[in-house]
């Protein structure tokens, strides 16, 4: 740096000498005439042209300074990984290359189309809202829309100019381009008319190219971080959701019970549960929230919480479902709903008392392979607050198998867009009559996957099997 300083000082000194020499020549010139010596005449004549050489030296110094600033900015740009560090650095370094009285770096929000000032210098805080402009409005808007730089020598005579600073007389803006796409612009304002030259515009454009690359790199880095954070949160959500599902199957002799759940994404909207009410009464629930992913998972958590609270305080299934419905109507968007089946099985009497809130009807496959469906007794939950739910009864017979499922099983599509369907589900259950409930739910899940292959199963998939062995 010292060496550079020495060179700059030398440029200045030499330029001063040349200027002084030229001034002496101008002073001497009126005193010369035809009688003067030709060498003196030539010396004075040549010396009067020396300011050109002095200006060349000054230009060289300026160019060297600019190069130095660019090298420094380049190194700064490549080392910063946060926009709030990077952009102030750029705008402050810019002052050393092109003078401004006010300046801003503006980026386009790709979602809203709004131009947002990311870093500003020289504007009044009150005028900030005037600086924000929609793409296509104002001088910056024109630059962003066209992708072309703009220099306005006298802003008073340009109808596009939006006044954000009373002192501004001239303005220059260049686009920030990334792979041909305009991601924002640099804007400089000066209190002098015609402050900016074509050379200034070239300098600013060069800097803008460096800055655009750096900004995109920072954005990419931020995106990677955000994705990693999202994946960590999703993994946590998955663990929380897994904790909502039964870890163990309650022993409920003589019945054989098993359930299985596979979300199509990290988290899902399907749910099943066993709720021990008394020594002899077991609550069994299966539900499906409309939609998929995190939104559905949150509703599923609300549904589970409200169902469990109601089950503990209330044994009347019609009341439980009505209350859960009311709660969901109040707490979820009107286009979100839950289909659910909830039944209580008395193992001593073999009586299943149930309500079905618009859920795919569970099927009972009797020992003689005949099939019975437990149809809906009321509307889906969370859609209409005054819905009522009837209660039905089914008395288990030896050899019965009850399958409760979500539409991820029956609606699973193969590549010919055929659904797996209820008939295949029933046929699998009949074919695997010898398997216990646990092996049966795994077997059916494998069959659904095999049916869809090579397509993946696209929806959340949940299945519960309940068998009463032959006497």
């Amino acid at each position: 740096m010292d060496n550079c300083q020495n060179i700059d000082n030398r440029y200045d000194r030499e330029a001063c000498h040349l200027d002084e020499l030229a001034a002496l020549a101008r002073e001497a010139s009126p005193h010369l005439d035809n009688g003067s010596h030709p060498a003196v005449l030539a010396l004075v004549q040549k010396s009067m042209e020396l300011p050109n050489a002095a200006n060349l030296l000054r230009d060289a110094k300026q160019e060297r300074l600019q190069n130095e600033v660019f090298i420094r900015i380049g190194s700064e740009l490549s080392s910063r990984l946060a926009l709030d560090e990077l952009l102030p650095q750029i705008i402050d370094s810019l002052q050393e290359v092109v003078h401004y009285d006010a300046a801003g770096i503006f980026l386009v929000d790709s979602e809203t189309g709004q131009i947002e000032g990311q870093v500003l210098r020289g504007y009044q805080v009150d005028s900030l809202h005037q600086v924000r402009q929609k793409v296509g409005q104002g001088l910056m808007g024109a630059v962003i829309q066209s992708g072309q730089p703009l220099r306005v020598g006298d802003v008073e005579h340009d109808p596009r100019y939006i006044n954000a600073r009373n002192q501004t007389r001239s303005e220059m803006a260049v686009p920030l381009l990334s792979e041909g796409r305009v991601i924002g612009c640099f804007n400089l304002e000066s209190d002098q008319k015609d402050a900016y030259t074509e050379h200034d515009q070239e300098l600013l454009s060069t800097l803008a190219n460096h800055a655009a690359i750096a900004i995109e790199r920072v954005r990419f880095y931020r995106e990677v971080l955000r994705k990693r954070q999202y994946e960590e949160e999703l993994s946590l959500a998955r663990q929380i959701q897994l904790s909502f599902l039964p870890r163990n199957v309650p022993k409920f002799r003589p019945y054989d019970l098993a359930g299985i759940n596979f979300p199509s994404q990290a988290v899902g909207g399907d749910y099943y549960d066993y709720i021990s009410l008394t020594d002899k009464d077991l609550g069994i629930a299966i539900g499906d929230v409309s939609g998929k992913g995190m939104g559905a998972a949150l509703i599923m958590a609300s549904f589970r919480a409200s169902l469990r609270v109601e089950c503990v305080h209330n044994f009347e299934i019609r009341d439980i479902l009505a209350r859960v419905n009311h709660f969901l109507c109040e707490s979820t968007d009107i286009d979100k709903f839950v289909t659910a089946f909830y039944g209580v099985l008395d193992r001593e009497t073999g009586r299943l008392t149930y309500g079905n809130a618009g859920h795919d009807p569970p099927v009972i496959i009797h020992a003689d392979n005949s099939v019975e469906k437990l149809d809906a007794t009321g509307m889906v939950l969370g859609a209409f607050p005054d819905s009522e739910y009837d209660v039905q009864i089914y008395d288990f017979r030896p050899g019965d198998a009850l399958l409760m499922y979500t539409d991820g099983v029956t609606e699973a599509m193969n590549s010919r867009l055929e659904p797996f369907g209820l008939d295949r589900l029933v046929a699998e259950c009949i074919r695997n009559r010898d398997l216990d409930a646990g092996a049966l739910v795994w077997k059916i899940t494998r069959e659904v996957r095999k049916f869809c292959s090579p397509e993946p199963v696209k929806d959340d998939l949940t299945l519960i099997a309940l068998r009463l062995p032959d006497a």
Partner: protein
Amino acid sequence: MDLDFRKSNDVVIIELGGKIMGGSDSAKFFEQLETSLGEGHQRYVIDLEKVHWMNSSGLGILIRALKTIRDHRGSLKLARSTRKIQDILTITKLMMVFRTYDTVDEAVHSFDEST
């Protein structure tokens, strides 16, 4: 999702087509429905003949449409629902709140009969 709003006398006929799956389809649908309700229209028929497929989020669109129209003291009928949609409405018991008609004409004329 294909979407077309047209008027037949004082009834707005909303023709849906393709896959009805919620998401951005839903935003487009409700933007147009809100505009129509804002203009004072109260009678709506959703023609479902060209719908190939509807998931639970698509069903959510129908539920929200019914509630939005009712909130504006209007009424909504469904016409030409496919077998598949009929099955979904039956399983979910939503048939209790949606009036469905075999043809658009029947749905349109049902408003006069009910008043």
